């Protein structure tokens, strides 16, 4: 049992909400809350990760400050999420990277950009500013790229998996194999459609201002699907390379390019839109401890996409070297920050939504109901 000021404040706030319940139509948080009489660390982490920080409950709360109850679910959960991201991080000491997140991600990005620029310049020497017959592989060879990104990718994969596993267990979910797949599907659908960013009845949430708006949902969709399309582009390219012996570069009329361009555009529009909304949003709902995490993630996504598209346009020109190194610098920084930055929120949200689907089907609380036996957790985590 973690006992922190964020947990205490979240428990206080949820106790008031549970007696009020006016917000039950807004999102999953309140419906999950209604299944419980008590609030403990696990179920508060769960509720916090069901929250999208949409602001509806804050703007519509009769107890919002200056009322003496000083109620601000959105901000309390934002701070609690920030805290539990660190708690569930693997390896645990790196959880510290969640505080001052914007700062270290910026430093990381600067270092990665510097390293790749310097590396590219050293590898190609005088040819750094020259066109290459096989475009970017002429700057850094395919094998070097695969080794570099492959090994980082493996670390990132392990770190993400172990963090996710820890969170999964805290949500009292059974092994994925014994789950009811209908519930999982309900959770996935809610996550993919950003169901709870619609304010509760399709008019949108109170973001960036008190007025209901769908903008956040749309920009988030552009960002998410942009990311997925770029991921799909890379995956298709890998399959084409190894499976069909069709190495890059590809022409404009090819699957990887098509997916990549579409995704890249999504990753330009989405993050810009989300940034703009963020700047207009009421500071009261943001919490105190984000530390620039959201912003740095959006900048990284935007930078990755922008440099990726630039690289595509410049791949035949003499600028291919610097363009490639810039792009790789952004991609590497994005990769390395994935387990220790905003990226992780998607997994926890998804898991919380799956747990919510399980609870809704059973009509009873599951997460945080039984006090977990500390020894059991230790044994499981070692095993």
């Amino acid at each position, binding site marked *: 049992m973690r006992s922190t000021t964020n947990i205490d404040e979240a428990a206080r706030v949820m*106790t*008031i909400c*549970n*007696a*009020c*319940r*006016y*917000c*039950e*139509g*807004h999102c999953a948080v309140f*419906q999950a809350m*209604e299944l419980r*009489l008590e609030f403990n660390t696990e179920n508060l982490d769960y509720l916090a990760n069901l929250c999208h920080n949409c602001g*509806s*409950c804050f*703007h*519509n*709360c*009769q*107890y919002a*400050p*200056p*009322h*003496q109850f000083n109620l601000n679910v959105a901000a309390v959960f934002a701070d609690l999420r920030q805290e539990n991201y660190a708690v569930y991080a693997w390896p645990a000491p790196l959880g510290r990277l969640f505080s001052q997140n914007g700062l270290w991600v910026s430093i990381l990005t600067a270092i990665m950009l510097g390293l790749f620029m310097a590396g590219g310049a050293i590898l190609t020497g005088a040819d750094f500013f020259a066109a290459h017959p096989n475009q970017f592989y002429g700057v850094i060879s395919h094998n070097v790229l695969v080794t570099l990104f492959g090994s980082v990718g493996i670390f990132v994969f392990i770190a993400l998996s172990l963090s996710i596993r820890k969170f999964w267990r805290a949500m009292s979910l059974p092994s994925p194999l014994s789950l009811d797949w209908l519930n999982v599907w309900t959770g996935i659908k809610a996550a993919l459609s950003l169901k709870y960013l619609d*304010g*509760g*009845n399709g*008019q949108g949430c109170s973001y960036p201002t*008190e*007025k*209901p708006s769908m903008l956040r949902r749309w920009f988030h969709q552009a960002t998410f699907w942009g990311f997925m399309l770029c991921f799909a582009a890379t995956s298709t390219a890998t399959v084409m390379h190894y499976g069909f012996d069709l190495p890059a570069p590809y022409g404009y009329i090819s699957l990887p390019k098509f997916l990549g361009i579409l995704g890249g555009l999504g990753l330009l529009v989405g993050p810009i839109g989300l940034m703009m909304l963020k700047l207009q949003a009421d500071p009261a709902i943001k919490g105190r401890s984000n530390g620039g995490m959201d912003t740095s993630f959006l900048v990284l996504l935007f930078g990755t996409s922008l440099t990726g598209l630039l690289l595509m346009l410049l791949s035949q020109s003499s600028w291919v070297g610097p363009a490639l190194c810039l792009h790789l610098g952004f991609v590497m920084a994005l990769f390395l920050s994935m387990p220790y930055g905003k990226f992780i929120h998607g997994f926890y949200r998804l898991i919380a939504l799956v747990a919510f689907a399980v609870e809704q089907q059973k009509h009873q609380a599951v997460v945080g109901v039984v006090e977990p036996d500390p020894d059991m957790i230790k044994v499981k985590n070692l095993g």
Partner: protein
Amino acid sequence: MNISSQCFDVVVAGGGQAGLIAAIVAAEAGATVCLLEGAPKSYRGGNTRHTRNLRPMHEGPLSVLSGVYDEEEYWDDLLRVTKGKTNEPMARMMLRESAGCVDWLEKRGVQFQPPLGGTLHLGRTNAFFMGGGKQLVNALYRWAEGLSIEIRYDAKVTDIAFENNRFLGAYVGDEWIKGKTFVAAAGGFEANVEWLREAWGPVADNFLIRGTPYNRGELLKLLLDKGAMQIGEPDQCHAVAIDGRAPKFDGGICTRVDCVSLGIVVNKDAKRFYDEGEDFWPKRYAIWGRLVAKQPDQIGHVIIDTKSKGAFMPPVFPAETASTIEELAIKIGLDPQTLRETVDQFNAAVQPGKFDHTELDGLATAGLEVNKTNWARPIDSPPYSAYSLKPGITFTYLGVGVDQSARMLMSDDTLSENIFAAGEIMAGNVLGEGYLAGIGMTIGNVFGQIAGREAAKYALNN
């Protein structure tokens, strides 16, 4: 804009639902409107901010309501709760008009909760605001801003100029605001503790006020002093028993305690004083404010045992708990011996039967001075829990008389020429006694629309 030089078509006092709606309707009809809200912006919206639902009549399913709730059924309900203290033609007119409330609000950006199934979810008779009354308030203020209504916060009307049944203008402190018509929608006087004391005596000092501290009834008093017809008596109010630890003002909905029907209620002498199981709690919660108000020091304690844990809406403040009745008595400041006796007598009087909280199960006590007629289970399984109860005033009934066009009546039965009233300040015209969940907002909505329409009509024709 130098507000003092302009003459508005309609000046509205009070920025809760009734005033907002009157202002919007008038502005939509083409009138220039000034809305004077006595509270600061952060507390705008009066008691409307604390509400949850309204009760519209409907002949068939509405967007957010199932089934049928027609005029006859609604009228029967109203007649029953008011025990006839209502004005039939006016009430029936209001019930019919209420059929358009949900649609009117939705068209102006107010969101309702799609049917969910939850604790207080009535589904058929009551339409619930998404996120509560503050969402409605926010949406209507946005709409009013879009109509260029002059909205002023911290603008408490302190005096009005009134000659020969005609309103000339209002004062906000030193400032003079001229208008062709006036809509009085400033709520009741429930937050005016001195006035409550006049009506109730010193016991009023122990009342808690569930809603806004800004409904102090200054405007109501002004109108009555200027000869408006009085409706209702000052000691009539909607009062429920709420948690004794709630704040003095503005505690709202979350301070309710919903376990009275599951346990017993004792006063500070550790004696029971009323049948806790008379009827379902939603039908009885509104009498317990008065019941507790009549007890010494205006305090009650509801006592339950562990069998009832989780069977009612979780209260906002934790219960006092103890493993024996005596220990519990000491914790809540009662005499342990007397409480022990009260509980023992109660337990011994419980008759056999099957407990079922979803129906009037007839599980009763026999032979006590005050019997419990339903859900009477012995209080015998520790740990025991206690919540303190105090009277929580929701709103007062005293108001000004109006006719069907929301025009204010004078005490000599004449009509004021250009003053209209809407909302809590005139609710007593149709609701002389009792309460029906959601009818407060319905009255405010319907009479707000009528007042806005009639005021605009008068102003634009004169």
